[in-house]
């Protein structure tokens, strides 16, 4: 997963629901120095809550992405993030950085 262009990650999930696995796995996919390069905000819901897990991302170009983690699955989430990140990396290359 290309995490270079993410500036903000905010997740909300109830770990006791099996569907929260996607959000948790997304957190574990961030690199070890992620907290220095981006803002990571995690909120745990109480056990009884049935709220869906949320995953919101912000990119360097200001694009906000609100992903339905439960429906996409971790593969789908990675695909979505990479699709936008590839566009950004191509722009960066074209600008000559």
């Amino acid at each position, binding site marked *: 997963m290309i995490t270079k262009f993410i500036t903000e990650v905010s997740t909300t999930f109830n770990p*006791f*629901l099996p569907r929260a*696995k996607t959000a948790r*796995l997304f957190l*574990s996919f*961030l690199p*070890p120095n992620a907290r220095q390069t981006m803002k*990571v905000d995690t909120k*745990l819901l109480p056990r009884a809550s049935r709220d869906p897990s949320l995953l919101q991302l912000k990119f360097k170009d200001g694009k906000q992405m609100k992903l339905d983690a439960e429906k996409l699955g971790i593969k789908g989430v990675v695909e979505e993030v990479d699709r936008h990140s590839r566009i950004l990396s191509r722009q960066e290359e074209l600008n000559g950085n």
Partner: protein
Amino acid sequence: MLPRVHTPSKAISSILRKRRPVRSQRQYATAAAITPAASHEQMTRSSSPIARYPLTQPPSYKPPEFRKSQLLRQYASLLRSTPLMLLFQHNNLKANEWVGIRRELSAALKKVDAARVAAGHPPEPLEDAIKVQIIQTGIFAAALRVVEFFKPESQSASLDPTDPATPSSATVPVFTKSGDELTHTLSKAAHEAVADIRTAHALAPLLAGPLAVLTFPNVSPQHMKAALSILSPSPPDFPAPTRRANPGWHDAAVQSGLQKLLLLGARVEGKVFDVDGTKWVGSIDGGLDGLRAQLVAMLQGIGGGVTNTLESAGRSLYFTVEGRRTILEDEQKEASGETAKQ
């Protein structure tokens, strides 16, 4: 000294050869030893049955030489022996961050131990026994199922084949070659009992992704509070150590490690708690003794209430009866007055 053996003469050896044609090796004549008569004990009691394997190594259904079988045993034993366990998700922590976190944790726990000793409790160093370890979630889930759901009936496991009192006709439980009657963690019975309950345990959804557990050898909220204030500080109840009191905790490595450590829940005496429940357990003042004191105070309050209630019932009964008596007396007087008139 060389044994005194005589080579048999040709005639004798030919006879021997005729009698026992199967023997191909050379036979030596030996003095016939007289077997001593069996002792009384041997005559009256049969010999004890022989287990085909050591008691510590019963045959197992899962191949014991695999690492995952041994991990399963290790996790099952861990789950049986630790009543208090915190679960953390660790997101790509580096080795030096783990080192820093473990160092800070053990320092804080040592402080708690010292404080307990200073407060007059018997010295009971838990610091060595409380540790963070990263677990393999799938095997841990299997071990959890075995521990929680596989309850073999207490059968006659007391039959010891090495005990001379055990008759040889007795069927020793750990005796079958197929290992059908065994009930240890790696046994077939344990496997079949839990094979079809995949998600039944409440902790099962947590067991995915990178997971680490902090295990305590007994339920000690003080130690838990210290550990929580180090690993996931939350200001009112679990304040982070100040920079002056504990400068090591504010190291860059420890801080960046703690940011990536996420408390998910706890398992306290077989029950599953979420983060709030975990914090509640950690915030019990004075540990188990404190809880007992609270209970005693509550019971005393209840006792006072009970006596009041009982007394009030007695009192009201007294008033009722007294009232009834006066009414009856009045009626009697009236009745006697009427009869007097007539």
